[in-house]
């Protein structure tokens, strides 16, 4: 209990010290915040991109555009035939009228379509593939589908999605590398701040050591200082990311609206935000631990 109380006292004293030099504290926190916000912000953007593309990606699918003379009855017979294939997960029939209605809704060319006489769109069988992950199985299936009577054109729409996914994976890796580098930067920023603090309080440290303070006691306020800086810097980074998203959410919604989607940007959320803050705290603790250890050895050597 006494031990816990002493830790709380050190924590409060450290907070007090930080508020006594508000400008220096604020500057350090902003630097840490921006440094942590950069990879977090990129991560959030990638996350959103991925969410957009998974909306399209749900089971790779092929569109079979039917010849215009295929009747509705023939089309549903064809659909049954395809559904029976083992490599097919499901088939949806989109009639010419339904296709037109959807196109009218999504494209924004409604009035232009009214000018046309008749419906220019073909009926479509949307085939959901059960073997989308396996390119070797997809190719022969597509050949079979294209060869069916009544099918005008069979089109597989997953290639560019696969490329996008690969691109996102690459970007994710790059952001992860950036995150590691910038974490190192935060470690060094906090480490250097703490190192300077140790130098400034050298006399105090020497006196504490002479009156029987253990190394742990000497280190404690600096560790709390680093921990707090990291924690507050992490929270600031969270705030920065959320604020940027707030600024972007309006234009993003507008853009999504143009595509007939109700997609909205999502931020870090509480769990990831807290993770960011805790990661900052951990970096701060490690940074100050290294700096204090190093600087105390320098003092001891003299």
């Amino acid at each position, binding site marked *: 209990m006494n031990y816990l109380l002493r830790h709380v006292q050190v924590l409060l004293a450290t907070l007090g010290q930080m508020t006594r030099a508000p400008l220096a504290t604020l500057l350090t926190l902003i630097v840490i915040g921006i440094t942590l916000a950069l990879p977090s912000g990129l991560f959030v953007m990638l996350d959103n991109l991925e969410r957009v593309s998974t909306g399209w990606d749900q089971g790779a699918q092929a569109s079979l555009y039917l010849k215009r003379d295929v009747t509705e009855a023939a089309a549903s017979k064809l659909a049954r035939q395809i559904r029976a294939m083992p490599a097919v997960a499901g088939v949806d029939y989109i009639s010419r009228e339904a296709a037109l209605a959807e196109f009218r809704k999504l494209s924004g060319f409604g009035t232009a379509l009214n000018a046309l006489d008749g419906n220019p769109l073909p009926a479509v069988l949307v085939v959901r593939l059960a073997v989308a992950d396996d390119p070797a199985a997809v190719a022969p299936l597509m050949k079979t589908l294209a060869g069916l009577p009544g099918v005008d054109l069979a089109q597989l729409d997953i290639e560019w999605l696969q490329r996008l996914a690969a691109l996102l994976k690459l970007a994710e890796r790059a952001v992860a590398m950036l995150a590691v580098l910038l974490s190192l930067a935060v470690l060094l920023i906090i480490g250097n701040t703490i190192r300077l603090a140790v130098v400034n309080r050298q006399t105090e440290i*020497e006196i*504490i050591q002479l*009156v*029987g303070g*253990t190394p742990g006691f000497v280190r404690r306020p600096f560790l709390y200082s680093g921990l707090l800086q990291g924690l507050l810097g992490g929270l600031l980074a969270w705030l920065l990311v959320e604020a940027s998203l707030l600024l972007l959410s309006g234009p993003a919604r507008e853009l999504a609206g143009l595509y007939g989607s109700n997609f909205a940007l999502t931020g870090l959320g509480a769990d990831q935000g807290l993770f960011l803050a805790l990661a900052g705290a951990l970096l701060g603790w490690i940074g100050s631990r290294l700096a204090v250890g190093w600087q105390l050895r320098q003092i001891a050597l003299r």
Partner: protein
Amino acid sequence: MIQLSHVSKRYLSGPSDYVALRDVSFTVAKGEMVFVTGHSGAGKSTLLRLLARIERPTRGHLLVHNKNLVRLPNWRVPYYRRELGVVFQDNKLLTDRSVFDNVALPLVASGVAQRDIPKRVRAALDMVGLLDKEKLHPIVLSGGEQQRVGIARALVNRPPLLLADEPTGNLDMQLSDSIFDLFHDFNRHGVTVLIVTHDLRQVERLGKRVLTLKAGEVVRDTGLVG
């Protein structure tokens, strides 16, 4: 209380090494009061640094309080120092803290329970006659008062051994008298006191045992006196 046998301390500085203490042996009994005098460079400060376990002797044995300081591992040093009060010439007070906080520092550092601290700090301040100055900062105090704060800090842990390094080096005669009387008083209450000083007037006035160092060797030891 203190037992030195054939203690030498050698500093390696470049090609020529410098011998600060050469084969020093003496014993200080519990409850004794001893003055260590000598010219600067005679090894007085080195002796104190060895006793406070800031450094280890190069050779010989050094026992304080039945603890062998040569073998004392680093992690035990803080605990050893808690049984030791040290007063410095420049008093080494923290200027950004109040008198109370300065005196409380050894208690806080050694993890004394919070509720016991005010009582013990005030007891120590009372001993040096500064009870009414606890809220002030050391800067506004006179040199003599600052040194008393340093003494209160050295005593607040109630150490059985008090070491002082030129405690009146910066003070005038009258203040020096009062400081030395204070040490004498503690000694009468059972604290073993070792004072490094070249204030021979005080040495003569109090008539205690005197050890004189010269070039790292004990050249005179008056032995136990009254």
